[in-house]
């Protein structure tokens, strides 16, 4: 029941992840960060099977960083997304596939546009204006259908994000211990707000 949510605005991508690390019926941790910065302008948010998630995210992070060091150039968000999809697609047909769903939030410095990609464990990839994984999708996508615009300002985007979080708090049966709200824009990745 992890919450992973991404919303693009006119100049940035807002990424919202829940802070609870849950195993069975127990909450193990209340300050969990379900994201990894894979490149200066690209953030990877993930959910899925316990061990697989961090293992996969850090594998991607390491390989992107290695590529950057070897070629002294930053990979664009679409390039990184393609790489992640290929890795998941090959893994899907292996003996033990990664059970990981991800959102890739990036700011493309070449086109000056924010970009959000949705990839599930089957390696289906789509570029979307807003997306969520798991149960959160059922409660937030309808809200986003109503309130999202491509020309949202950051303040307006955060307002929509707050509406989504309020709805999730109201409807999800388990407390997800607040959220981390991160923003990816032309200056890179930053933590905008952390709630309890």
């Amino acid at each position, binding site marked *: 029941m992890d919450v992973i949510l991404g919303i693009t605005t006119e100049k940035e991508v807002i990424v919202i992840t829940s802070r609870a690390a849950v195993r069975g019926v127990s909450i193990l941790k209340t300050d969990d960060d379900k994201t990894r910065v894979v490149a200066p302008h690209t953030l990877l948010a993930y959910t899925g099977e316990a061990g697989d998630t961090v293992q996969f995210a850090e594998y991607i992070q390491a390989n992107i960083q290695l590529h950057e060091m070897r070629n002294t150039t930053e990979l664009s968000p679409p390039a990184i997304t393609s790489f992640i999809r290929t890795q998941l697609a090959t893994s899907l047909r292996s003996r033990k596939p990664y059970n990981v769903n991800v959102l890739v939030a990036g700011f493309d410095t070449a086109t000056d546009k924010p970009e959000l990609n949705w990839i599930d464990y089957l390696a289906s*990839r789509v570029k979307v204006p807003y997306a969520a994984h798991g149960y959160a999708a059922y409660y937030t996508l309808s809200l986003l259908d109503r309130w999202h615009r491509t020309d949202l300002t950051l303040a307006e985007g955060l307002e929509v994000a707050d509406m989504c979080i309020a709805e999730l708090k109201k409807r999800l049966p388990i407390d997800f211990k607040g959220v981390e709200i991160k923003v990816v824009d032309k200056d890179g990745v930053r933590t905008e707000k952390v709630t309890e």
Partner: protein
Amino acid sequence: MSDPSSINGGSIVAMAGKDCVAIACDMRLGMQALTVSNDFPKIFQYNNSFIGLTGLGTDVTTLSEVFRYKVNMYNLREERDIEPETFANLVSTTLYEKRFGPYFVGPVVAGINSKSGKPYICGFDLIGCINFAKDFVVGGTSSHQLFGMCESLWEPDLEPEDLFETISQALMNAQDRDALSGWGGIVYVITKDKIVKRLLKTRQD
């Protein structure tokens, strides 16, 4: 429910007309009943051949990349464009390579042979058995509905404009009866020296 070919949903249809062919697809990508995106086109162009790929979303993307690579290699080796008939055989062999662990797709190929000017359309099953047709081929989660629509709307020797109308109506009315397809459409009408791509605005439910 967990049938790989109907997790993500989507449909395609191709029709032959008089010295022209048309191929059309919907725009949905979902996870079961939840629609994730309404901007997921399923038709890809390689030289003068078009392929519509429906089925498991991941295999649609993977195969579109595999065919891009294989057609680029063909172009370099042969120093000419690939013809629709040749491309259809390439698709068939590519799919059969994975005979015992297949890609979960239902492809449809359409194009006009640049030498003879003859329209060519065909469909495949997931392991690459070619189904060549003179009239129309369908694929995807609304294939039953599409068969019905095509069977009643299609007639021989349609001109490009009429073919566009026929294929569009066939696609739209078929996908309106399928919960896993829809959310817009794309239609390509291909004649010997012109390709027209049109976007269909359809019901958003």
